[in-house]
């Protein structure tokens, strides 16, 4: 087990910067998830920690040891690949034991470790099979087993569940979570799926275009996103963004007009210096933060476009005609239909405001 830290890590391919000045501290035993859209550099960052990619600049420390120039095998890490990367010509048992056998680990110890992994992952009955005789979920288990056998200080997972079907993904997610509790080892996990990030992580690192946008606990990111990108990326269904214009401002609050939603006015307290009157800003409201008409600070009349009734809750997709779709969650309702008109309210305490560059204004 070990802590891990990145200090001003940079990765360039030619003149193109893939990772820009990434700094991050991971505590011993922490479960950290790198999340972001594809191409954001999250897998590259993970491979740099593994040593499979060289870093252009900066420092990577694992267990207080600078590992920049240390071979991947000597960094005390183990990695689970997206494609599993099992040795196709070896049985499950051979796959698990291969690394240990190659390094001359005593046979008794290798056998003990392989047995332990087989117990932990419940793959005893698969030991004599080849990878092609396994289902996707079983292969994934073996790939995780191969990482556990190495008894690493840090586990690295590169989108391990993306090749599995939805049901199995949920099941494996729970298993990985359980595994983390059992082993207590530091884990770094890459995914583009924000649900996986929210459910697994102690700490989420949101990446975009090679930049770390925000680092924080899942609910901190949900409640207090640093910018519009994080606000939109974390949470499902996504946060609603509405175009607005400042119509009045003083040092403590601004009043905005919702341009595509009937120019309704809303007054919000703000912390940062107010923008100029007439400036365009974006209002962000999560689907579940709309309240009944009259219970908020501004009422909004909407036209239902599609209503999804899921039983425990309903999602109303509204106002598409206005060019700006709203998704509204309504737990109490099961009756809205297409073309119905509804009035809902926005509470200023649950609304976020972003400037034109996407930075938080409140």
């Amino acid at each position, binding site marked *: 087990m070990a802590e891990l830290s990145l200090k001003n890590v940079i990765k360039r391919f030619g003149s193109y910067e893939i990772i820009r000045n990434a700094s991050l501290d991971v505590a011993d035993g922490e479960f950290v998830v790198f999340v972001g859209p594809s191409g954001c550099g999250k897998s590259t960052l993970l491979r740099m920690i593994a040593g499979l990619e060289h870093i252009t600049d900066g420092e990577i420390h694992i267990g207080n040891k600078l590992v920049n120039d240390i071979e991947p095998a000597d960094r005390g890490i183990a990695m689970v690949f997206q494609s599993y*990367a099992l*040795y196709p010509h070896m049985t499950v048992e051979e796959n698990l034991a291969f*690394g240990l056998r190659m390094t001359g680990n005593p046979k008794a110890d290798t056998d003990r470790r392989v047995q332990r992994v087989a117990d932990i992952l419940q793959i005893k009955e698969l030991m004599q099979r080849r990878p092609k005789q396994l289902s996707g979920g079983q292969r994934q288990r073996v790939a995780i087993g191969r990482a556990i056998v*190495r008894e690493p200080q840090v586990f690295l997972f590169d989108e391990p569940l993306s090749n599995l079907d939805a049901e199995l993904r949920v099941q494996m997610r729970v298993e990985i979570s359980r595994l983390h509790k059992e082993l207590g080892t530091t884990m770094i996990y890459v995914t583009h799926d924000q649900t996986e990030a929210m459910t697994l992580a102690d700490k989420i690192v949101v990446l975009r275009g090679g930049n770390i946008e925000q680092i924080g606990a899942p609910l901190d990111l949900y409640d207090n996103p640093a910018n519009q990108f994080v606000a939109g990326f974390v949470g499902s269904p996504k946060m609603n963004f509405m175009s607005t214009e400042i119509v009045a401002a003083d040092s403590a609050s601004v009043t905005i007009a919702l341009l595509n939603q009937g120019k309704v006015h809303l007054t919000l307290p703000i912390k940062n210096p107010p923008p100029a009157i007439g400036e365009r800003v974006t209002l962000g409201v999560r689907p579940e933060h709309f309240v009944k008409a009259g219970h908020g600070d501004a009422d909004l009349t909407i036209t239902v476009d599609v209503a999804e009734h899921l039983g425990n809750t309903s999602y109303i997709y509204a106002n598409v005609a206005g060019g700006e779709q709203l998704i509204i969650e309504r737990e109490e309702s099961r009756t809205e239909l297409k073309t119905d008109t509804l009035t809902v309210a926005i509470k200023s305490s649950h609304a976020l405001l972003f400037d034109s560059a996407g930075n938080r204004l409140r």
Partner: protein
Amino acid sequence: MQLRNRAAYGFLAPYLLIFAAFWIWPIISSFLMSFQNTRVNPWVFSFGANWGRLFNDPAFYNALKNTMIILIIQVPVMITLATIMAVLLNSPLLKARGLFRFAFFAPVVVGEVAYAAVFRLMFNLDFGIINKLLNGIGIASISWFAEAPAAMALLIIAVTWRWAGYNAIIILAGLQSIPGDVYEAATLDRVSKIRQFIYITLPLLKPIILFCVILSIIGSMQLFTEPFLITNRGGPGGGTETLGLFLYRQGFTSLNFGYASAIAYTMAALAILISLLNLWVGRDEK
């Protein structure tokens, strides 16, 4: 037969007729011919004329011996070389990969007569570059065409030069089908590059290598061009006469078609037998 099928067979008929006339019939006809004495007119059925003679013919055993020597030495040497070439071609460090790939494959495209002529010149006793080079490092000139072992070595070198690149390209395709992350996983498992090659690359290449070995066995069994053109019709004194050349001599020089057919069937049977043996040795245990 359904109408749809009938139309399909109609379209296939020209090909099937040609296939039957020039493939199926010769196979049957030559089999029957191998049981006929074709040195008398008209031909008469005689089991012993060909098959009986074959097993007692020292010329046949000589050709068989020569073919087997080439097979046993040339095939392993060539496949090993081809595998090394494929690994080098696959290296990310290699520049101008396309050029090398073409260069390795080029010998297959070169005309057989041209390549034979160049080899004859290169290995010429008095003014060939090979003897000049040997002299340069203090080795006396070798009479490549006049001594049987040297002539045999020359044949092996020539065939290897011509076909190693071809096999390397096939093996390269196999190498490229091995996913890169398997090697990355092995790197993280602290497996050295050499051990990765032995324990991962070679086992995963086994089916491809086996395929190349069987192709090469069939090719060696039929070897004809090189002993005919380079070592002057199997010279010196039958020292490089292969089964293919022996067949040609019996069939088209002596016009003894029955005996040539028996030789052809023996060659095919041997090729099948050795290939099956290879498949059996290289089989997957599970």
